[in-house]
């Protein structure tokens, strides 16, 4: 019988938050269709992860093990997933709209000859068995609804931070079905040679719960230090972002740029420091749950989107804010 499949993502021996979000999404869909919720886990020597998935809602785990799957490549992962999916014929296959998911799922969908709705913010199951999928386009200036009426499985990537993780239930375990694959390296045309670590160990802005972001008003690269300090005060799950103006002025690297030619982010809290709020920037962050704006210019468009604003010099406000946050954190 068809099922709801999710691709479990993990890194450095741990399941990623998106995996729990996907299982929570899967559970909601299962509530409607009654199909089994299955997780696909790919890698080598990660049995311990397979057993964790049940508590988050997986009925079954298809653990695809092979030495070559230790490193991610879109070719090897596609080949492994293609085999199971053709065998099991699920009705739905979901992955994360993460660096890996965005690279992998399009190839899987093409291999299976089915449709993929990328970077979705809402996925619901209709009575006719079709997913009604909502996805932002034009960097979030518009939303569109799509369906995948003919081909199966219906595929989508889920944007991180959109679905709340349901509480885990340690009494639940999943049936782990382990398959030893025999993939041949020489069959693939690409190989991962090396992973180059970034400067900071911070999480990606697309997965951050709190983002402290700087714009042209930061004036210099060195000044981003005060944003780093505020981010550290908030603690885990916080990342530093930047506007295009700041990136173009070489104050920050492009991989933390928020907006239409950067990344679209969806944190609980977005603190915009010295960002005026161009249409491209606003498109990239306006789904944040709370927006705080700190800007000298009371007319800056960012104030039109902000829940809380302080008109003032960020170089005065941000360090004070850091102090206050630290103070409050130490009290709790």
């Amino acid at each position: 019988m068809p099922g709801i499949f999710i691709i479990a993502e993990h890194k450095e021996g741990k399941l990623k938050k998106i995996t729990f979000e996907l299982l929570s999404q899967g559970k909601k869909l299962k509530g409607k269709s009654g199909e089994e919720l299955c997780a696909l886990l790919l890698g080598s020597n990660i049995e311990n992860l397979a057993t964790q998935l049940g508590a988050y809602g997986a009925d079954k785990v298809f653990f695809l093990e092979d030495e070559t799957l230790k490193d991610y490549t879109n070719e090897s992962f596609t080949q492994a997933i293609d085999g199971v999916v053709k065998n099991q014929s699920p009705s739905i296959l979901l992955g994360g709209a993460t660096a890996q998911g965005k690279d992998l799922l399009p190839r899987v969908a093409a291999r299976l000859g089915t449709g993929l709705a990328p970077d979705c913010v809402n996925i619901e199951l209709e009575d006719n068995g079709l997913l009604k999928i909502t996805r932002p386009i034009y960097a979030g200036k518009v939303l569109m609804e799509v369906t995948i009426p003919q081909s199966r499985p219906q595929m989508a990537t889920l944007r991180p931070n959109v679905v709340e993780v349901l509480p885990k239930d340690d009494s639940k375990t999943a049936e782990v079905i382990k398959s030893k694959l025999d993939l041949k390296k020489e069959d693939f045309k690409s190989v991962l040679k090396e992973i180059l670590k970034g400067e900071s160990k911070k999480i990606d802005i697309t997965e951050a719960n709190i983002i402290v972001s700087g714009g042209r008003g930061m004036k210099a690269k060195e000044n981003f230090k005060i944003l780093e300090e505020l981010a550290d005060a908030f603690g885990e799950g916080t990342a530093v972002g930047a506007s295009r103006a700041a990136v173009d002025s070489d104050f920050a690297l492009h991989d933390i740029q928020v907006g239409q030619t950067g990344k679209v982010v969806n944190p609980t809290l977005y603190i915009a420091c010295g960002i005026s709020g161009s249409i491209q920037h606003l498109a990239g962050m306006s789904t944040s749950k709370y927006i705080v704006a700190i800007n000298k210019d009371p007319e800056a468009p960012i104030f039109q989107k902000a829940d809380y604003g302080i008109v003032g010099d960020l170089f005065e406000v941000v360090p004070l804010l850091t102090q206050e946050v630290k103070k409050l954190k130490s009290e709790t």
Partner: protein
Amino acid sequence: MNIVVCLKQVPDTETKIVLNPDSSNILTEGIKWVMNPYDEYAVEEGLKIKEKFGGKLTILSMGPERSIEAMRTALATGADEGVLLNDSAFEGSDSYATALILSKALSQTGYDIILTGKQAVDLDCSQVYAVLAEFLNLPYVSVVVGLELFPDQKKALAKRETEGGEKELIEVNLPAIFACQKDLNIPRYASLPGIMKAKKKEIKKLGLNDLGLKPEEVGEAGSKIKKGKYFLPPPRKAGIKIEGEIPEATAKLVKLLREEAKLI
């Protein structure tokens, strides 16, 4: 080297998007159309490869007549020729159908290396390059911020941006597809003589029959994704500006974040 850049014309990122009356699409009147910003990096990389190794740089685009403007921009910076895939049957193609159309054209032009932007900033799908790779049985690297070619060995080394500042170094066999990200290079501007020359460069047009496609394979009929309604996100209301001296205002902000937003 036979270098092909696939590009798309999109609304300028400054555009304020307005929906058409039946919410089935955006209103295109008055829009300023530009080359997809990420495709500029693909064009520049194509030019650099051509300068280093020699060969021909072809600009391939599927879209309406007006796409020629974006193609001319690429031709003005030094690309050699253009191929526009234009047919009323192609309208409404999703990523899958678009990739199929491009794959047929590429089988005609030939290719040693294919470059695209990492995504088009209109529909933000970021998947045509991957589906295309499947149709042509090629490897691809997405979100490319560094590229080195070794044509003698038929190999390339690409740097792919992943997350949190991390990058992967991936070796691929050529031919291959690379989906380009900002930071890969700094696109050049067209020179005046370049713009003059571009006007005389050939842009070939190919349609359904030229590519040996059937109407049911393309457009909405050949698409896997069915489009429904478009809608605008709920408008965000401006909140409060916290008044008072900076230290008091800051303290009040932290209190609000704790009590109302339940953060901290």
